């Protein structure tokens, strides 16, 4: 018997949204513990220097201050961490510890931690710390950092090259030699950062009487932090509990180890009382990880028929003074060079990656790791090739996208694709956006001096990663997940699962999936996430794995409980369990659909009258299931996006008129949440394409580190986003779902850059730098 699909595939609203709207959210900052202290940090004002003098005596004596820590008093409590992994052969990074010791390595590097009865008092005391730094020349520019004789950006490294790798197919040189056309371009992709609605927040609470450390932390990966805190502070794993309550957005930013969180834990361990740190907006800009920061030179070889023969790519990415821990800062560049040309049949490829240290905030994994860069470079070159060959952008892509019946397929970079739907998606997009009408409207408006552009960008997205991502490199990052599903004595269902919720609706889809296995409604399924003491250990939520891996875990756990329930029901009813099924909150006869016994009655008997069950009948109403992906190393998804823009050629301001997405994430569990994931992702792709950039001066100072100057995309500037779907389930799982969280971000910027260049084409101008600001567009047009 198989369970029905009454709720999988339905547009259920996010259950916790109403609670948040009612002001009943429980975030870390809503928690007030007895004797809790508040932390503030004195940070290096300079990008590079040596601490000549540090005097905290006045700060220690300030009103409300309980304790002041420096590297000397805090770092010894913590084993240093090093952000390298073995599968990135030859990579290096200096060990880090909590507070700056001797050298300060970026503007914002924490030097002193002050604990007071309020954050305001801690900030008052920060102003009393005497910090004298002998400034040294900072490593700011990545290209300069690689020159001979460049000073290293941190101590204990011999050069600023963190990692270099080259991928190359044997036919690369021949492909370029035989090409009818070679198009080439250099790109710069700016730095940006996550700007989550809720900033980073942590409360560490160590109880010396029990040796128990409880950390309330706004993170997507509680188990990873349980492991980090246990190992680096020498605690038994069972004595470390990490609780992620409501989390206001994460996007990859909240799964890295930060100095401030480690300091908070160290301080609580030292003082034996709760310590709270909440990053304010100013310090978020100089301590949250930044993203991207690439310079790419790329060329593409095509034959006379417009067939893509090869790409040759060189990516230099700049990551700050250290590689982040425990996932490294190499994954982004590694995915950039491996995702190039991925939607196309392109047989040959060379990709060279240089990951470079500098004295800025660390960069690391952020939503759609590497994807937007690879997509923008590939699609810009495809459009250039189309222009050379006088082909329509749809036509050149139709000629090169992998055919829908040509799977399995392996890309030139070695990625294995189970089954994708590029050609179907391309055709669907053309219809969805009414492409031909848009083109004629564009031509008409150009005659009136209005410059509109249309850009398209197919993409693949890496989802459902197995251990190949981190585990093989030695990282203690789980690729599996676990769930416990139980029937309560009253016939309700509870599911405790290791995947976590940051606002995307994880708990809602888990409830839908479990409900369908047990014949109940999702509101009868209470889902618990984000607590290492009460849920099984697992990888949690990152890299698009919540639905695909977490969902499959929930499905299998639900089926296991279903079998247990049917076995009990069979015993009670003296029926063969194979003739029974679950529906409508009851056990039914699977042949006739007739109700035989309610779940509440099963719960009652198994809990209160197990003595009435036959000898040997297992009365367990809990099922535990762990699941790790097998088969393909990743489940790739695919899709295509289109952007319609209008460039004001006098002001350089771009108006985003419309955006379209056709997306194939396999089995859709909840169309409402899938569409909102895509829309949010698109906005996070358009943000850095037009607005978001961490600007640095040549001294290594971030010059726009406030929300007055750092421009996040706002609703007023965002276009309507129309979405359509193709569904190609993965056969690796029963559920068939792949990830969708990063699809929007992967290609939105690429489509937009192609659209802007399409608008500028009649004027002979091009732009290949993000964000595409008015200044850069006016410069391209020769007005500045």
């Amino acid at each position, binding site marked *: 018997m198989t369970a029905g699909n009454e709720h999988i595939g339905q547009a259920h609203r996010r259950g916790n949204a109403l609670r948040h709207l009612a002001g009943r959210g429980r975030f870390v900052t809503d928690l007030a513990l007895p004797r809790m202290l508040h932390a503030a940090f004195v940070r290096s004002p300079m990008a590079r220097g040596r601490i000549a003098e540090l005097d905290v005596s006045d700060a220690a004596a300030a009103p409300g201050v309980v304790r002041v820590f420096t590297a000397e008093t805090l770092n010894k409590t913590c084993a240093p961490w090093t952000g390298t992994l073995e599968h990135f052969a030859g990579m290096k990074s200096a060990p880090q510890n909590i507070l700056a010791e001797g050298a300060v390595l970026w503007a914002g590097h924490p030097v002193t931690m002050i604990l007071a009865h309020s*954050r*305001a008092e801690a900030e008052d005391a920060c102003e009393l710390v005497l910090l004298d730094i002998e400034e040294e020349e900072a490593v700011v520019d990545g290209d300069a950092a690689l020159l001979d004789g460049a000073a290293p950006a941190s101590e204990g490294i011999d050069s600023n090259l963190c990692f270099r790798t080259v991928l190359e197919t044997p036919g690369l040189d021949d492909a370029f030699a035989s090409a009818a056309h070679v198009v080439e371009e250099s790109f710069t992709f700016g730095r940006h950062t996550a700007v989550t609605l809720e900033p980073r927040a942590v409360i560490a609470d160590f109880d010396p009487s029990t040796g128990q450390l409880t950390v309330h932390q706004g993170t997507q990966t509680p188990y990873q932090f349980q492991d980090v805190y246990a190992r680096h502070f020498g605690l038994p794993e069972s004595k470390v509990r990490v609780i992620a309550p409501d989390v206001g957005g994460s996007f990859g930013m909240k799964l890295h180890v930060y100095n401030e969180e480690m300091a908070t834990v160290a301080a609580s361990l030292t003082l034996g009382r709760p310590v709270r740190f909440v990053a*304010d907006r100013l310090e978020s800009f100089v301590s949250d990880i930044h993203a991207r920061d690439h310079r790419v030179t790329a060329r593409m070889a095509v034959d006379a028929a417009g067939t893509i023969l090869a790409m040759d790519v060189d990516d230099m990415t700049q990551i700050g003074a250290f590689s982040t821990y425990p996932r490294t800062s190499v994954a982004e560049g590694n995915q950039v060079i491996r995702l190039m040309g991925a939607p196309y049949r392109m047989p040959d490829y060379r990709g060279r990656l240089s990951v470079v240290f500098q004295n800025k905030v660390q960069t690391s994994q952020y939503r759609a790791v590497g994807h937007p860069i690879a997509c923008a470079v590939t699609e810009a070159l495809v459009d250039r090739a189309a222009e050379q060959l006088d082909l329509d952008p749809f036509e050149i892509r139709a000629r090169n996208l992998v055919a829908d019946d040509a799977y399995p397929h392996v890309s030139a970079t070695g990625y294995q694709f189970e089954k994708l739907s590029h050609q179907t998606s391309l055709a669907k997009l053309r219809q969805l956006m009414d492409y031909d009408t848009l083109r004629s409207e564009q031509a008409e408006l150009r005659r009136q001096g209005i410059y509109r552009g249309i850009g398209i960008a197919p993409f693949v997205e890496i989802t459902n990663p197995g251990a190949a991502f981190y585990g093989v490199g030695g990282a203690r990052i789980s690729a599996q997940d676990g769930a416990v599903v139980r029937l309560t004595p009253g016939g309700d269902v509870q599911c405790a699962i290791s995947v976590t919720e940051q606002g995307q609706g994880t708990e809602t889809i888990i409830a839908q999936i479990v409900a369908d296995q047990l014949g109940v409604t999702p509101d009868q399924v209470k889902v618990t996430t984000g607590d290492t003491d009460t849920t099984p250990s697992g990888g949690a939520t990152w890299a698009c794995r919540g639905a695909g891996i977490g969902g499959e875990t929930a499905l299998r756990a639900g089926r296991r409980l279903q079998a247990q329930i049917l076995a009990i029901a069979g015993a009670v009813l003296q029926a063969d369990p194979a003739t029974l099924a679950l529906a409508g909150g009851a056990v039914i006869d699977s042949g006739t659909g007739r109700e035989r016994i309610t779940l509440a009655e099963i719960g009652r008997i198994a809990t209160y009258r197990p003595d009435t069950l036959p000898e040997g009948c297992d009365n367990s109403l809990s099922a535990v299931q762990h699941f790790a992906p097998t088969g393909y190393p990743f489940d790739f998804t695919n899709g295509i996006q289109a952007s319609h823009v209008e460039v004001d050629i006098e*002001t350089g*301001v771009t108006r985003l008129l419309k955006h379209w997405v056709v997306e194939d994430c396999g089995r859709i569990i909840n169309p409402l949440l899938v569409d909102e994931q895509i829309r949010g992702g698109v906005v996070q792709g358009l943000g850095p394409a037009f607005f978001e950039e961490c600007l640095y001066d040549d001294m290594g100072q971030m*010059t726009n580190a*406030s929300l007055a100057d750092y421009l996040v995309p706002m609703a007023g500037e965002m276009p309507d986003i129309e979405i359509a779907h193709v569904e190609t389930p993965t056969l690796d799982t029963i559920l068939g779902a792949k990830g969708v969280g990063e699809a929007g971000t992967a290609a939105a910027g690429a489509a937009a850059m192609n659209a802007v260049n399409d608008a500028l084409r009649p004027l002979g101008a091009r732009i290949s730098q993000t964000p595409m*600001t*008015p200044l850069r567009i*006016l410069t391209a047009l020769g007005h500045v």
Partner: protein
Amino acid sequence: MKSPKFDYVRAGSVADAMTAYAEADGDAVFVSGGHSVVPSLALRLQAPALMIDLSAIEALSGIDLRDGWLRIGAMTRHAQAMTDPLIATHAPLFAAAAPFVAHPAIRNRGTLGGSLAHADPASEFPAAALAMRAELEIASAQGIRRVPADDFFVDIYETAIEPGEVLQAIHVPCAVAGQMVAFDEIARRRGDYAMVGAAVQAVSAGEGLQDVSIAMFSVGNRPVRAASAQVALTGRALDAPAIAAAQAALADDLDPPDDPQFPASMRLHLARVLLGRVLAKLETAA
């Protein structure tokens, strides 16, 4: 981002407010809507011992006609500028500028007087006041004086208001027959401070434009009167050559700051583009 400690007093009258300021030996800050002062405290850009809240002072509220001028109380909220019929008639550039100022929640709290006294060179109302040739009513221990907008804006965040004085009201000359106005700005995002902005007022008379008044903002350390551009337009019909002449004249009026992220050449270019567009709107309105 927590402010240092400060005391707070809600003043009942302008005299009380000035007394409180004097008693604090000047270590005090006046606050009306609070949308500039409060963030500056949180950012620790200033740390006064005393905050003097002016918002409850009745004498600072009210909008009425007096002797050929519209008197607008300093405590008039941005949102009121968008709805008040007297402002729409006699101070139309305030009404036109208001939708560009931030977002509704801020406009409900922010005040015209606060905006003018703060004198951010990128903000809208100071330029509107300059273009309308407003006069600013300032109370001091010595009495009340009126300062023309041309003399009021001194430098970045600096006005003719001396420490301890209070801006009480804004006086705008009543509208005359044939008066036209237009306002626009170029901003990265809706509600942001402008990259460049322009407020224009003129009278359409039989023999061409008269009383041309052009205020550009976000082009220097204060709102800037484009005197040469005014001359280029005065007495002429508002046609394409006249507009081009005004745009060209801006080079004599503006000396924008230079910044790698926003070169002076770009600001001048945008100012010319915007002035052209604003003048074209003026034409339409006539």
